[in-house]
């Protein structure tokens, strides 16, 4: 076998040449060029239709964007207005409730809103207010004690002394009762 002929067709090799001749019938035919699909023969109608669809979709997209922008811009204003309407509605409801209880003198509108913003059932006194009020009462009593006469002072002291004795006696009784309750019946019998 001539290797050079197999590689570069130089020289001769009868066997390879015979195979070439045999297989030549399957060889590529350069004249059988396939017909190229009409890439440049697009009908004008389809082009215009495609353009129309494209333009339509573009317009629809633009319109949707404009609507979305308007909605976004107007949304906060609408919500503020709604909140204001709710705030105005609250006093009217409270007024209706208060009207059922007591006659309410209607002043100008702003005063009504301020007054009815905190109705009576919502302004309950707090615990710290009660305590401070009691403290003020005790201080007032001390101030008043300083203004007593001698007899009144004596009577006041005796009363306080008697109250302290009574209090101590009551405390002893209470302690005894408590001890008997804890010890049980056996302890009570022994004590007797």
């Amino acid at each position, binding site marked *: 076998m001539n290797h050079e002929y197999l590689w570069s067709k130089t020289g001769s090799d009868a066997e390879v040449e015979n195979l070439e001749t045999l297989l030549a019938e399957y060889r590529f035919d*350069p004249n059988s060029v*396939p017909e190229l699909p009409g890439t440049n023969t697009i009908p004008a109608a389809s082009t215009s239709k495609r353009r129309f669809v494209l333009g339509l979709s573009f317009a629809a997209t633009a319109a949707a964007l404009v609507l979305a922008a308007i909605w976004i811009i107007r949304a906060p204003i609408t919500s503020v207005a709604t909140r204001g309407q709710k705030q105005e509605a609250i006093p009217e409801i409270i007024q209706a409730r208060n009207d059922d209880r007591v006659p309410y003198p209607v002043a100008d509108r702003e005063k009504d809103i301020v007054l009815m913003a905190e109705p009576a059932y919502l302004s309950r006194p707090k615990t710290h207010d009660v305590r401070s009020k009691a403290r003020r009462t005790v201080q007032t009593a001390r101030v008043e004690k300083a203004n007593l006469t001698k007899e009144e002072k004596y009577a006041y002291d005796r009363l306080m002394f008697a109250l302290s004795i009574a209090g101590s006696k009551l405390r002893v009784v209470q302690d005894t009762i408590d001890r008997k309750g804890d010890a049980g019946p056996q302890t009570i019998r022994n004590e007797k």
Partner: protein
Amino acid sequence: MSTNEETITPAAFLKMPDRAEVPKFCSASSEQDFNDLYRTYGPLVHGILLARLPRDEVPDVLQEVFLAAFKNLGSLRDKNAAGGWLVKIAQNHAANFYRTSRRTEELEDDFASRSDLHTEAGEVLNAIKTLPDAYCETLVLRLVEGMTGEEIARQTGRTPESVRVNLHRGMTMLRQKLGIEGKK
């Protein structure tokens, strides 16, 4: 050099020197460009398909390959890779043929007496197709399409050494298949 801004037709691209890089094809490719592409790389693609497909299917798939290549020619940037690129497209189309095709045909009445099934050429071609793909493709390109080893190496993008080895090993195996070993 402002080659990146230039456009070029596929026909001009094929006539450029081997080392040239093509920046961009012009969008309006003509029928003449397609014909040039077909005539230049037709034997290569035909040989690849003939090595892989039934002979009757080759013309249709060949046309599909070139239409796909022509459609996507703008994505090819390097002329030196054009052959390998076409070979790959052809191999993919051949694989798709077997993957998707469920074609069935009724046998004709004179099927048994058709001469091409029993010709010597048909037997040789069938013997070549039984060889491994690398040997089969190289031998078909050499014996059927009449390309030299250098042309095969240049168009497929393979090295000349590997093409030479494939040719000689394939030829040796073909001799054994055809039972012509010893004839010189």
